[in-house]
């Protein structure tokens, strides 16, 4: 492996790792904001306890998300210097705006929220968590507008061998962004919702604080169902857009070597041979890919071999077929996990509405490992979209191999790759340990809250 391969591995590991925490933060932020709103509006203390309990888990998760996010921003310059030079005048913009407009808001108001329970009026304190949730969503919007540029470059021109921004609003209006952003955000809601539903299911199974956890289960499972369905719908529009803009990625995701006939089948299981560029074995659902791509029973989908010829004609000699197996299987893992999520969301909501959900032991037991499903789907989705874009780092403009830092040696990347992987492993272990610890402990009724001390006068204010 050379510095390029190692840099790719490092980018993949740090990004997938970071994005385990991000969607959970976004989803939980809204759900906690909702619980706290119930507390403020209904003046029902149990919602306050719930908001605090989920808030504690949220903060553990947020901390890991923040620290791995710094790496996310720095690694473009560190490992992908030539990429940064090539697209910085376009791509840097959304990143800077994200930090300035969203991340400041998120971090500052989160700090105020954590320490502000008895410093601020209820309503101002509630506004803080809503600001955190909204800022986190805006963060996602800015980051995804940068990513959308890599998938579908818009609002730029090439001057002196680099991309320069010509229209900021084109970046924000990028059609790719508006199919990608909803898909990611609904996925984030689903992540938070399945987490809450699964943990609540565990507590109900253990017969601990059943009344309280039934409340959070109800919120969790309903949001889980709705957001899973919406994620799938948004994913559907995304795949239709993909047909128009990156047909090669779609063909690779289907392991489709030859262009299909009038109607395209969807492959369920294929044994792919990338050497001879054919599938040794393939189970297919007829018409399904045409429906997925065109909302119609008919519609031919171009295969990789034909696209390869087209791309050679457009972009010059080269291999434009991405790693087919990874793209194909990550797509199937994402879709499979998504289907299971919809199914479990339906069952959970159904039995909740029929009452006595706490007695549906099997379903509750299934919902605990189901916490993992959105994480699997999120990661697989990103692997599919980023691997499927290869060999491009910016579609049609720059090859990944041309973006790497020329002056960073293999040894340096190997060192940092090993270092980050070890640290990430330790963090994951500690994080899971602490989450389990607090889930076991359950909701703590804080006595300081009940007899909350009146705020003393200002003698503790430091005088200058």
């Amino acid at each position: 492996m050379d510095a390029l391969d190692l840099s790719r591995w490092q980018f993949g590991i740090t990004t997938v790792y970071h994005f385990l925490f991000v969607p959970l933060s976004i989803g939980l932020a809204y759900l906690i904001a909702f619980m706290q709103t119930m507390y403020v509006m209904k003046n029902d203390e149990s919602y306050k306890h719930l908001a605090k309990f989920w808030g504690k888990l949220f903060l553990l998760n947020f901390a890991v998300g923040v620290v791995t996010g710094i790496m996310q921003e720095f690694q473009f310059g560190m490992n992908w210097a030539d990429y940064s030079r090539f697209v910085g005048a376009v791509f840097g913009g959304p990143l800077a705006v994200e930090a300035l407009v969203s991340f400041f808001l998120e971090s500052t108001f989160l700090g105020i929220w954590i320490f502000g329970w008895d410093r601020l009026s209820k309503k101002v304190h509630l506004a803080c968590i809503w600001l955190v949730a909204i800022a986190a969503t805006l963060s996602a919007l800015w980051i995804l507008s940068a990513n959308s540029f890599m998938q579908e470059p818009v609002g730029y021109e090439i001057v002196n061998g680099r991309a320069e921004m010509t229209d900021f609003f084109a970046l924000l209006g990028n059609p790719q962004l508006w199919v990608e952003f909803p898909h990611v955000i609904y996925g984030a809601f689903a992540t938070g919702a399945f987490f809450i539903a699964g943990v609540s299911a565990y507590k109900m199974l253990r017969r601990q604080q059943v009344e309280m956890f039934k409340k959070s289960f109800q919120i969790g499972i309903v949001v889980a169902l709705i957001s899973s369905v919406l994620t799938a719908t948004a994913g559907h529009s995304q795949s239709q857009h993909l047909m128009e803009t990156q047909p090669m990625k779609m063909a690779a995701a289907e392991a489709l070597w030859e262009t299909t006939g009038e109607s395209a089948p969807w492959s369920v299981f294929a044994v792919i041979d990338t050497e001879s560029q054919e599938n040794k074995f393939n189970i297919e659902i007829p018409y399904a890919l045409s429906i997925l791509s065109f909302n119609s029973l008919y519609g031919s989908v171009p295969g990789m071999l034909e696209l390869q010829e087209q791309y050679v004609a457009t972009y010059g000699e080269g291999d434009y077929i991405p790693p087919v197996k990874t793209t194909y299987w990550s797509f199937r893992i994402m879709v499979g996990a998504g289907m299971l999520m919809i199914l479990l969301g339906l069952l959970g909501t159904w039995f909740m509405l029929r009452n006595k959900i706490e007695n549906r032991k099997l379903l509750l037991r299934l919902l605990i490992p189901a916490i993992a499903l959105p994480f699997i789907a999120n990661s697989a989705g990103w692997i599919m979209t980023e691997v499927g874009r290869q060999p491009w780092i910016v579609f049609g403009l720059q090859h990944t191999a041309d973006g790497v830092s020329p002056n960073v040696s293999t040894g340096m990347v190997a060192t940092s790759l090993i270092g980050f992987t070890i640290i990430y492993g330790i963090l994951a272990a500690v994080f899971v340990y602490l989450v389990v610890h607090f889930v076991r402990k359950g909701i703590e009724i804080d006595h300081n809250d009940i007899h909350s001390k009146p705020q003393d006068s200002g003698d503790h204010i430091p005088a200058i």
Partner: protein
Amino acid sequence: MLEALWFSLIAVLFVGFFFLEGFDFGVGMLARFLGKTDTERRVVINTIGPFWDGNEVWLITAGGAMFAAFPNWYASLFSGFYMALFFMLLALIGRGVAFEFRSKLESTKWRNIWDWVIFFGSLLPPLLWGVALANLMRGVPIDANQNYVGTFWDLISVYSLLAGVSIVLLFLLHGALFLGLKTTGIIKERAEAFALRIGKWTSVVLLFFVVMSYFETDMFTGKGINPGSIPILAGFALLSVHFFIKAGKTGWAFIMTGATIVLSTITVFICLFPNVMISSLNPEWNLTIYNTASNTYTLKVMTIVACTFVPIVIAYQAWNYWVFRKRVTVDDHLDY
């Protein structure tokens, strides 16, 4: 013109970062030593609890702003100082989670480990920033293609380490004075006594660094803009700290360490201008604000965004400090 404006804006972001994160790095380094019991340590950490994350965003925004406004500077600096940044990231990652994790379990051993992580996580970044700044001032091997061609060890010298130590001392002093303002009783006394002890040493080491800069860099030869009286004011501000502490005016002492940090950072940026990285191989290969900048359109858009949002950020961060203006005491609700 826009290039110069963005150079100043990035300077502003670094000034904000060093001023704000300066005291929370200082507090992080001191937590273990000024807090003798677990509760005392919690008090010390809670003084920066609501602030440190917001403070760190100044660095992240500075990084983002460099990427957007001077992509070639961002690329050369971050790839060139690769290993230094790797160590800094490890430190920042460890420190960030340590604040969150340390009090989550009762075990003394557990808390002890995270307290050490907070210590090293707060010590390493200022040390490395010192090393980085010294190298920016002195120049590093940069080739005709704007690539750093040295190794990590080329960044390490007596001069750059001295810069690192100076910044560590300055932040320790700044942090101790912040604790003097935000705590009461025994912790306040310890913090102020520590500030009094370290204040003199900080002045001596910084003076030594300035003298060494005269020989090591060409900052004094007036190739950039003459900073005029700014560095002299920085020196006076630092010297006055000692007297303010002795007079019991911790607030003024804190303002003066703050002024030292702000004025010194401004001095470095002014002396660099219009260079952003100096090539030790050939002055023709210097990175300047002109040969690293984005196109005019990008700079214009970013100017509008920055001019709108920087004041808003400053306003709500100020409100944050106002909400938590009270001193933290051992009787507080410290469950976090």
